[in-house]
């Protein structure tokens, strides 16, 4: 019974963290920018005016609202109004993972809309003058060495757990090649993202070089943290299976998804402070 209550609490916290708390922080940030950097003074920031931006915020809020309602309904059906049908064993350990995938949809939509905005900003950039820094951007100069070392260590720990730990402990377990392939594909994707962040074209044509550098540092850091989380999560999954601690799987799955958001989106909101960004680049100029 206590496991059942624990699962219910963890699930409610997941709904709150991913669909209410961080979305509200994002909305507050967007509204702050609109209020303090209006289109009358910073027209380059709003290629389509503020109405489109407000519409995007509205869509983001609505999507999170619907998903929160779905989550609460699920919580009610599984944990409250179950008529004694469900026990902890009946609650699928995949529920937090599957629901988190749905919770991430508004963030993906918002990211897509941001890309559309940048595309319009690039289209509206008519200056004949192109600027670039003569400082090279090297991966090792921009990455935190401690985070990199931890990420490498976590990855090696996972590979050791997957390939050797069961035989060392004398336990019968098969190597999950799908997990290894997933790790390889994810890290290949991260490598490509980091490469294009370092040498690729500017998304925001007006962005100041210092802001761009900070953004690249944050991108690298967040991908390394994500790598650490995935390695730890997969290692924990292996240990849970080896020691038949299936009752912990619901909790670890939910906590993993929450940490992805806290250490990803949450860190971005803390690291990239609006007060430190150069918004003067979006002011009216005679250049373009």
């Amino acid at each position, binding site marked *: 019974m206590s496991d059942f209550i624990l699962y219910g609490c963890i699930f409610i916290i997941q709904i709150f963290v991913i669909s209410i708390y961080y979305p509200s922080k994002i909305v507050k940030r967007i509204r702050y920018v609109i209020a303090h950097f209006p289109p009358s003074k910073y027209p380059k920031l709003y290629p389509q005016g503020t109405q489109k931006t407000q519409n995007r915020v509205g869509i983001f809020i609505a999507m999170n609202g619907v998903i929160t309602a779905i989550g609460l309904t699920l919580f009610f059906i599984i944990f409250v109004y179950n008529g004694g049908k469900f026990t902890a064993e009946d609650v699928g350990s995949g529920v937090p993972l599957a629901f988190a995938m749905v919770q991430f949809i508004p963030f993906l939509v918002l990211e897509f809309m941001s890309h559309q905005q940048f595309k319009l900003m690039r289209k509206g950039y008519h200056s*004949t*003058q*192109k*600027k*670039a*820094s*003569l*400082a*090279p*951007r*090297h991966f090792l100069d921009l990455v935190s060495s401690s985070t990199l070392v931890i990420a490498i260590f976590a990855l090696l720990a996972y590979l050791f757990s997957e390939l050797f730990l069961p035989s060392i402990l004398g336990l019968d377990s098969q190597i999950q090649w799908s997990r290894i392939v997933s790790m390889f594909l994810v890290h290949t994707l991260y490598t490509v993202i980091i490469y294009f962040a*370092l*040498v*690729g*074209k*500017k998304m925001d044509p007006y962005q100041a*070089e210092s802001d761009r550098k900070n953004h690249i540092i944050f991108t690298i850091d967040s991908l390394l943290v994500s790598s650490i989380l995935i390695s730890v999560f997969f290692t924990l999954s292996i240990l849970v299976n080896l020691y038949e601690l299936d009752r912990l799987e619901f909790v670890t799955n939910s906590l993993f998804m929450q940490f992805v958001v806290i250490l990803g989106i949450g860190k971005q909101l803390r690291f990239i402070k609006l007060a430190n960004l150069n918004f003067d680049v979006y002011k009216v100029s005679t250049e373009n």
Partner: protein
Amino acid sequence: MEVIIDIDDATPLFAQLMEQIKQAIVEGKKQPGDPLPSIRQLANDLELNNKTVAKAYRLLERDAIIQTKGYRGTFVHPDAKENCSVDLTAWVDETLVNIINQFKNAGVTDSEIRIAFSNAMSGKS
């Protein structure tokens, strides 16, 4: 240190880039041994073709302003500051004018000079 390229300027883009890098070195904003961005990074940042930046780098390396050290990247040449004051184009122009004047003083006609120059350029002489 920023470089600024004007795509509407009559000066070729690679020449503008070369001039800006030399200026950075002469003004001390880039010191001998300082690293420079890769061709791809600079081309993407300036929204130029890779070949344009590659040409600028190749000519700067020819003039011993920069040096490429394989996978380690591109760096400002140790003698870059001195070499920046050497204008290769001006030297070629001055030398050619001197040689042509010598030919004319010796009685060689304009068409003979042009034919000889053309043969020399194509390696036929």
